[in-house]
């Protein structure tokens, strides 16, 4: 097995250097279990809370070895979708199949191959990580090694400490370890990094990508655009209970009608006419002591800009390039701000 990232490397996902984890961590092979067949299939899922339709006609698949992100602002229906998949809520319509098993009709059997980390989870204060893992392990046919999980998630030193004494990051890692205790085919993570500091978030991202490398299907819900972009192989953008777009992050951005923007500020002010003459520029707006340009060709625009400034002995004080983001995609698809909840308290 040749895996790229894992909790043991301590490397940021940005530094994409392939590492053979077996060489570094001989215990990890148990955590990274066999590659498993396709995990999740959701078809026409609908869930209402009284008159409010939280999720409607939702359909998507999560393949083996894939991280699928459900992206949407608060209240878009992400948590409701995950809870229906996990049997925490009963769908009003639709089917959910996990590893070929109908998760609605045969909840217990389906749960045999599902691991989950829920939002705002807690354990009893006096429970230790080892006890919690041992208890969960005792219910499954093929549990992972507790010691390996503790080591893999850097919890060995805290294995016998009370849950109440763990830090936020350690608690989150414990829940991830619990999600893997049954060597699951499908891992469901609900806002896994919410409330974590940047360092802990990075570590968690590494762990999640490590799970993907083990061939698991991973379904992540998040309202963090950067996280979704960084982590997910495919993204389903959820708005008011419906998937409004479903593709790879790059494809979503490429498909957006927004153009890249260049923010430029010079020592001698440029005129609108000078800006419009630059190749690729389709629009420009004045900004305090500078301009914001929209261009169809960032390279040509920037190169030409620099040439002209040199020719005119003008000094470039600031140059920023903004590529279209998932937020732009979202605004374009829904016509509203990212931060606005779709429906109050919908979950």
């Amino acid at each position, binding site marked *: 097995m040749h895996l790229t990232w894992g909790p043991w490397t301590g490397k940021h996902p940005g530094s994409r250097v392939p590492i053979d984890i077996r060489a570094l961590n001989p215990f990890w092979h148990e955590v990274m279990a066999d590659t498993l067949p396709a995990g999740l299939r959701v078809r026409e899922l609908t869930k209402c809370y009284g008159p409010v339709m939280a999720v409607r006609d939702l359909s998507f698949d999560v393949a083996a070895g894939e991280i699928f992100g459900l992206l949407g602002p608060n209240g878009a229906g992400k948590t409701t979708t995950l809870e229906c998949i996990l049997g*925490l809520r009963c769908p009003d319509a639709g089917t959910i199949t996990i590893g070929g098993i109908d998760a609605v009709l045969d909840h217990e059997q389906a749960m045999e191959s599902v691991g989950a980390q*829920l939002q705002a*989870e807690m354990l*009893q204060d006096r429970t230790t990580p080892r*006890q919690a893992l041992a208890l*969960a392990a005792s*219910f*499954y046919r093929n549990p992972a090694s507790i010691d390996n999980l503790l080591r893999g998630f850097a919890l060995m030193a805290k294995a016998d400490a009370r849950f109440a004494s763990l830090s936020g990051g350690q608690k989150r890692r414990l829940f991830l370890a619990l999600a893997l205790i049954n060597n699951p085919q499908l891992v469901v993570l609900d806002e896994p990094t919410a409330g974590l500091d940047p360092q802990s978030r990075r570590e968690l991202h590494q762990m999640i990508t490590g799970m993907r490398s083990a061939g698991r299907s991973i379904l992540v819900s998040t309202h963090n655009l950067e996280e979704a972009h960084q982590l997910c192989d495919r993204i389903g953008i959820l708005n008011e209970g419906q998937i409004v777009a479903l593709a790879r992050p790059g494809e979503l951005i490429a498909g957006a009608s927004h153009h890249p923007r260049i923010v430029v500020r010079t020592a001698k002010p440029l005129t609108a006419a000078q800006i419009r003459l630059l190749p690729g520029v389709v629009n420009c707006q004045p900004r305090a002591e500078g301009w914001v340009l929209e261009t169809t060709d960032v390279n040509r625009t920037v190169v030409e800009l620099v040439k002209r400034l040199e020719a005119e002995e003008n000094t470039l004080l600031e140059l920023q390039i903004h590529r279209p983001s998932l937020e732009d995609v979202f605004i374009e698809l829904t016509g509203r701000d990212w931060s606005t909840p779709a429906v109050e308290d919908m979950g």
Partner: protein
Amino acid sequence: MSAARMLPGLLRHFFFTLGLNLRNPQALVYGYLVPVFFLLAFGSVFRSDTPLLLHQMGQLLTISILGGACFGLPTALVAERERGVWRRYRLLPVPTGSLIANTLAVRLVLVALAALLQIVLARVIYGTPLPMHPAQAGLAFLFVAGAFLGLGLLIAALADDVPAVQALGQCLFLPMIMIGGVGVPLAVLPVWAQRIAGFMPGRYAVEVLQRSFSNPDGLRGTGFSLIALVVIGGAAACIGVKRFRWDIRENASQFPRAWITLALLSWVAVGLAALLTGRLKPVLAERAPYETITEAQIESITYDDLPGDGEFVTPLAPPFKDSGDRAPVDELAAKLRTWAPGQLDDPGQSIRNLVCVAAVADVIRDPREGKVARAVYDHLRANFSQDQLRRAFAWIVLYPEDGEVLNNLPELGLRRHPPPVTVRSRSALYARKFLGRLLHKITD
């Protein structure tokens, strides 16, 4: 999943939950220390009993079980629900019901340990005898614990958070302690409270536990009480399981009122059944006050300063010579023969009630007052033993403020009702006159 597949997980969950409870100081205080306080308090209050606490063990054990089941169980369940522990349990490949059953089993063990601690401490500190029928005591414990665990499960289903558990638990706990025959003995309670206790499971719990402890017949004859516990506990448990909430976001307002009504109906049904089958007769203290009167106390009573039988106060007609002489009070005498307050299970209070009839007739200056008093005296002599009458008359003379006093007797044709205090003082005078005659110290 088959039971065999679930067994390792359920066993581990059982010991895990048991361990958590035994390591929780708050649970230990509520589950074990508070019952010990009750034990010591009862030991102080009933210090003159012999053997000490033998007749209070039913109450003490019921308090322990009630505390563990109606507070301990729902507090733990709701606290875990608040933390999302039950949501996580829901993700396990086992039915949630099996985990609830496991939690109930753990609580049963915890409550059993508390009960055993009570029995052992009572034995060690006060020398209280062990249960007369140990196996039946175990059976009674299972019925009582089962009923209260069912109620605990219902509280857990109803309560949104831990403070709500405390509030709901107190709604059950305090009435049962105060007027349900659990904290305050039934015999000490007024009759209305004893009747209300018949609608509460605490009364039946105390009865079955106490009988297995100190009654030679054990649980024989307690079928109704056992069924009452099954009905009340079973209804609560069924509703508690049916409406069990493993997720904090389902709040109590979603709990259909029909279920709550159904749970309360089981209490009403049990109470009505007890009432209609005559099981709610007033319970007496083990030793009625008049029985404690000694010969020396009877001998100490003097008769010198009594008003004369023909005087204004406490007139007493001479014995009836014939039916014509008795005729004015014939109707009253007939009524006395079926008059309920004169036929209580407590002869002392019955005699006091009958003496009140003479006293009321005297105070309200009934034209037949002397003959009424004579008719009462004749009725008493005909219906009570010499010993009962001696002790009861002496009790009325020596303790005029004891017991109940009747001052409103329209059913006997005495239409006005004088102040109770006057009736008590006249009753004491009549009792002295009757006692003097009974002991031949006064002649008619």
